[in-house]
């Protein structure tokens, strides 16, 4: 505790414990707030309530088995994590994924971005007192989850991207469902904007709140929509393209206000850009073609082959019993997850189990700038700031 000067003389500050069971912390985040009245003098985030040792567990699994763990890091964007991890292992192996699989990956990754932004918008709005937006957002997210279920057989823990390609051939007619969604969604985004963008209460709660200047943001390694709202068009899809992103035409929304409102506007614009990418991907995906790389001993053979070819059966057995061993070395891949830069570091020592898997998760790194955003602001602004950093505690604590 420190002593502060007030109108009536020196006074002591008060320490308030926010969380870990506070609904607006989006999980189990605890923040120690040192307060002078309602003004924040100091904020100290306390993490680890959801730490499950995923990185340690990865070291005890084969490369393929670890995919299921990546879903559980960021449970609101499982396919982005699948993609990051698969790309890292593929880089380690020097595997080239067929174009058809790459386009399907792009389409689903952008669907994930919309689904994740919808959960963000809904929960952020409910934190600031706009109840109805939450219901609309979850209605649309449900449509996306139905498409995920159609393709992967799972709504949330998809594990659909595998090393070398995809787990399954997508079902016939799945693109019709995507098409319905893509037609419906722009109007729905307009609806959210009608409810919020020029809403006076919304603007009062978010404009000028949680400012951080660009220099501080870069110094604190902040990435994603928050960095783009501070005026820098840093997007891994453009700067370091992966999975054929350079063939797609889309904009990277940038704003300069760097407040909660700017971050809201960026994410709304990003949903529209994602729809653009999805439309292009729908045209690009060939009707037929391989969805897995041809790599015996690494990528499991098709069911047909397994029943007719001796070699294929042996490979299948070997992949699922002992796994495969990449040459010793390291690979680091960064992708643009809905929350920012997701980096996956994989180190191999030449055995079937990774020597080290590390996830550079955007939530963990971005959360570090929370104190900078809220110090000097009011206590109610903390909630707006946590909302616009868009953290997922599973990803923060891993």
């Amino acid at each position, binding site marked *: 505790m420190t002593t502060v000067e007030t109108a009536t003389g020196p006074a002591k500050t008060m320490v308030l414990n926010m969380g870990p069971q506070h609904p607006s912390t989006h999980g189990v985040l605890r923040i120690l707030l040192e307060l002078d009245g309602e003004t924040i003098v100091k904020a100290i985030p306390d993490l680890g309530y959801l730490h499950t040792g995923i990185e340690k567990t990865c070291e005890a699994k084969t490369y393929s088995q670890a995919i299921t763990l990546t879903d559980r890091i960021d449970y609101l964007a499982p396919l982005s994590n699948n993609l990051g991890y698969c790309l890292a292992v593929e*880089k380690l192996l020097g595997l080239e994924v067929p174009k058809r699989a790459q386009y399907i990956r792009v389409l689903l990754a952008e669907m994930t971005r919309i689904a994740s932004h919808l959960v963000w918008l809904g929960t952020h709005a409910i934190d600031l007192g706009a109840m109805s937006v939450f219901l609309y957002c979850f209605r649309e997210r449900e449509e996306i989850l139905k498409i995920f279920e159609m393709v992967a057989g799972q709504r949330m823990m998809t594990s659909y991207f595998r090393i070398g390609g995809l787990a399954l051939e997508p079902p016939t007619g799945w693109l019709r469902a995507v098409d319905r969604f893509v037609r419906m969604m722009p109007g729905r985004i307009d609806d959210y904007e009608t409810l919020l963008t020029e809403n006076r209460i919304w603007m009062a709660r978010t404009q000028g709140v949680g400012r951080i200047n660009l220099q501080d943001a*870069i110094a604190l390694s902040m990435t994603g929509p928050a960095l783009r709202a501070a005026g820098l068009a840093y997007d891994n899809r453009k700067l*370091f393209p992966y999975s054929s992103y350079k063939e797609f035409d889309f904009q990277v929304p940038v704003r300069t206000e760097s407040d909660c409102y700017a971050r809201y506007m960026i994410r709304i614009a990003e949903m529209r850009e994602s729809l653009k990418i999805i439309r292009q991907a729908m045209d690009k995906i060939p009707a037929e073609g391989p969805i897995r790389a041809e790599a015996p001993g690494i990528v499991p053979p098709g069911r047909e082959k397994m029943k007719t070819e001796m070699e294929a059966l042996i490979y299948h057995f070997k992949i699922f019993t002992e796994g495969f061993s990449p040459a010793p*070395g*390291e690979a*680091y891949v960064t992708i643009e997850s809905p929350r920012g830069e997701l980096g996956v*570091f994989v180190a191999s020592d030449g055995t079937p189990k990774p020597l080290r898997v590390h996830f550079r998760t955007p939530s963990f*790194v971005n959360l570090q700038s929370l104190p900078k955003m809220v110090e000097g602001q009011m206590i109610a602004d903390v909630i707006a700031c946590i909302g616009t950093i868009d953290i997922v505690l599973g990803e923060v604590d*891993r």
Partner: protein
Amino acid sequence: MAENSQQSTPVVAEHLRSWNPRAVESVLEFHGEITIVVPRELLRSAAERLRDDSSLQFNLLSDMTCVDRFPAEPRFELNYHLTSISRREKVRMRVAVPGDNPVADSVTSVWPGAGWMEREVFDLFGVRFSGHADLRRILLPDDWEGHPLRKDFPVEGQR
């Protein structure tokens, strides 16, 4: 297998060498990723150089993490993944840290974002960072014994 690239030394390494010939122990290249191995005592000054040199500008610390090569020595390997936003380039800076004295300089003065990353490495690997203003455990409880990401820490936990 990572190997020394003799014929074409990457620009980053050349720049560091021209600043201080001892700054680059070796340069590794693997699948297009450049790794510059820097001696432990030059970690912070090399980091400053990488950030401030106008032809390098590695201003974003994307990630920092550790690898435990137990029982080999030096046991720990710190990997700093740097991005130069303006030059669209990435590089990995690596520092070897021995197991009997796991201490390295903190780079929080160069990239403040390293603060939590170093706390995480301290928490899970037990590598200490001198010059870090707030080196506490970050993910595990304060009274936790041991450092779980070390290779000699069993997966099922210590009994």
